[in-house]
């Protein structure tokens, strides 16, 4: 989908090249993460793809076409572009921001309006509430969602994302990363993603391109980079504890165990005891009438008499199947228990991750290498 051949960029005033003889092939539907320390040329590389920066030499193909043969304005309208939250136009409403490229492409009004609503829904913002708001009325995370929606407005096959989640706090960043991966599964865009955060790269990338001083150091899948770093530079970049980082590669949905049996809050504890005995389990989930997770019961809890609601223990936090095992581990550590509950978007329990699950995941990977 995107091909860079012998691409070099030399800035007038600097000594060495910002990007030197770079070859990169990004397949359709892949997320290619460019990662490296600041000044490594990752942002320059990305901006050459939509011709915000012109390469000194070499050729870049997008969808088989040499981008130098395309009018840069035309080219950019077919490549979505997300930068840190400062990129939203502060004097325009959220709807106007998202409509930027469709307006430039002169879409009919109705089509634009429908598309704006569709995109707002896709990124999890209620169109009726947010359509007419200004960027300053939104939180950092919400602005970032709008930024992503704006880039996807004209449904471009390619997205360029320059540290899109860089300005967010770690919790929001994790949430948005997961959400973005969920969306990407649906839309299957070809994405070039720039970050300086190797953990984000491992989590988001189908492939990671590690850059240093304008050169490509290693270009491979996250698994291969973790298992076989090409040089000391890569090892240092990845940092300590590669095993734990591998947890970033695995989704909870792939590894979780079956959810324990559930019992309604209003049920008497006798029923809980019966369930535990019948299924031979040592854990029960307590759920609301509509099936949403409310808490859990251990065999000791179930021994007391009364209603489930009186004896159950609260669950402060749960995770969704598209979170990573690393997220699961953090939750476990925060929660102080050896397990974490997995719920779907509606809050209904769908599975369970235990320490055993994590051990198995890490062990499995070690055996492969």
């Amino acid at each position, binding site marked *: 989908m995107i091909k860079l051949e012998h691409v070099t960029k030399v800035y007038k005033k600097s000594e060495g090249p910002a990007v030197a003889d770079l070859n990169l092939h990004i397949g359709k539907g892949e997320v290619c993460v460019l990662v490296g320390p600041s000044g490594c040329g990752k942002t320059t590389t990305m901006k050459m793809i939509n011709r*915000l920066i012109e390469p000194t030499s070499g050729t870049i193909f997008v969808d088989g076409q040499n981008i130098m043969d395309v009018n840069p*304005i035309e080219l950019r*309208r077919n490549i979505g572009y997300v930068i840190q939250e*400062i990129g939203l*136009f502060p004097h325009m409403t959220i709807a106007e921001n998202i409509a930027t490229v469709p307006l430039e492409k002169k879409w009919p009004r109705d089509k634009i309006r429908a598309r704006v609503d569709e995109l707002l829904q896709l990124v999890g913002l209620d169109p009726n509430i947010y359509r007419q708001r200004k960027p300053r009325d939104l939180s950092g995370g919400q602005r970032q969602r709008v930024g992503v929606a704006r880039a996807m407005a004209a449904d471009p096959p390619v997205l360029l994302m320059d540290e899109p989640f860089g300005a967010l706090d770690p919790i929001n960043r994790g949430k948005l990363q997961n959400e973005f991966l969920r969306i990407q599964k649906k839309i299957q865009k070809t994405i070039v993603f720039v970050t300086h955060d190797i953990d984000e790269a491992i989590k988001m990338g189908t492939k990671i391109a590690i850059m240093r001083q304008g050169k490509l150091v290693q270009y491979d899948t996250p698994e291969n980079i973790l298992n076989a770093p090409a040089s000391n530079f890569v090892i240092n970049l990845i940092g300590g504890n590669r095993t734990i980082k591998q947890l970033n590669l695995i989704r909870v949905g792939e590894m979780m165990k079956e959810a324990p049996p559930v019992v309604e809050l209003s049920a008497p504890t006798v029923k809980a005891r019966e369930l535990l005995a019948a299924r031979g389990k040592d854990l029960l989930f307590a759920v609301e009438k509509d099936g949403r997770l409310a808490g859990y019961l251990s065999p000791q809890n179930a021994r007391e008499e009364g209603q489930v609601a009186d004896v159950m223990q609260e669950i402060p936090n749960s995770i969704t199947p598209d979170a990573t095992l690393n997220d699961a581990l953090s939750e476990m550590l925060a929660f102080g228990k050896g397990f974490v509950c997995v719920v779907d978007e509606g809050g209904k329990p769908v599975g369970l991750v235990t320490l055993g699950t994590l051990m198995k995941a890490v062990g499995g990977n070690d055996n492969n290498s």
Partner: protein
Amino acid sequence: MTTTLKKLASWLLVPLLLAVIGTLVTVYFVSNPTDGIVARQLQYPKVLAYLVRHVFLVILSSLLAILTAVPAGILLTRKGFRFLAPVIINIVNIGQTIPSIAILALFMSILGLGVRTAVFALWLYSLLPILRNTYTGIQGVNPGIIEAARGMGMPPQRVLWRIEFPLALRVIMAGIRTAVVINVGTATLSTFIGAGGLGDLIITGLSLSRITITLTGGILAALLAILADYFIGQVEIHLLAE
């Protein structure tokens, strides 16, 4: 409907108040002349003519200044002209420190007395704050926002009109406000170079030692300045409030 009317009423309150004060003062001084000399100088058509001339000087020179300084300021931020900016902005800054009376005197000695000289000097002097604010306003737009617009495929012209200009408008308007208020004051001084206006009343009164003539001119000029400041301030607030 009633709320918009109320808004309009509250918006017009200050201008009306200023107009009423101006009228009352004029009527009082005109209908109570202290002697024959005052009676001859202070007549309604005369006072009105001075006022109209004053407003004419201010509006003409301000419009010319806006029409030239805003495009020039924009041009200074464009590729190809950007290298001129430091020099020009420096000249503008020095020009702004020169007192208006010196500017008027300077051009009088070069171009002679008259309305044309006054309009020229007023135009040149009020050009400076608008030019400077247009330049700094557009330069001050966050480069990230501009890059986002370019990166999404907006042609340079559209980036200017849809992104840079609206975002710089507040600063540009502040420059226009400064320019117009300065213009009202400088137009008062342009009486010295024979361009007429309310300054005529002030100096006529001073040279004839008739204080009511001076006060009529002075009060009207002051009210006009306050009105201009208020008016543009309101335009600023209402145009840019969202």
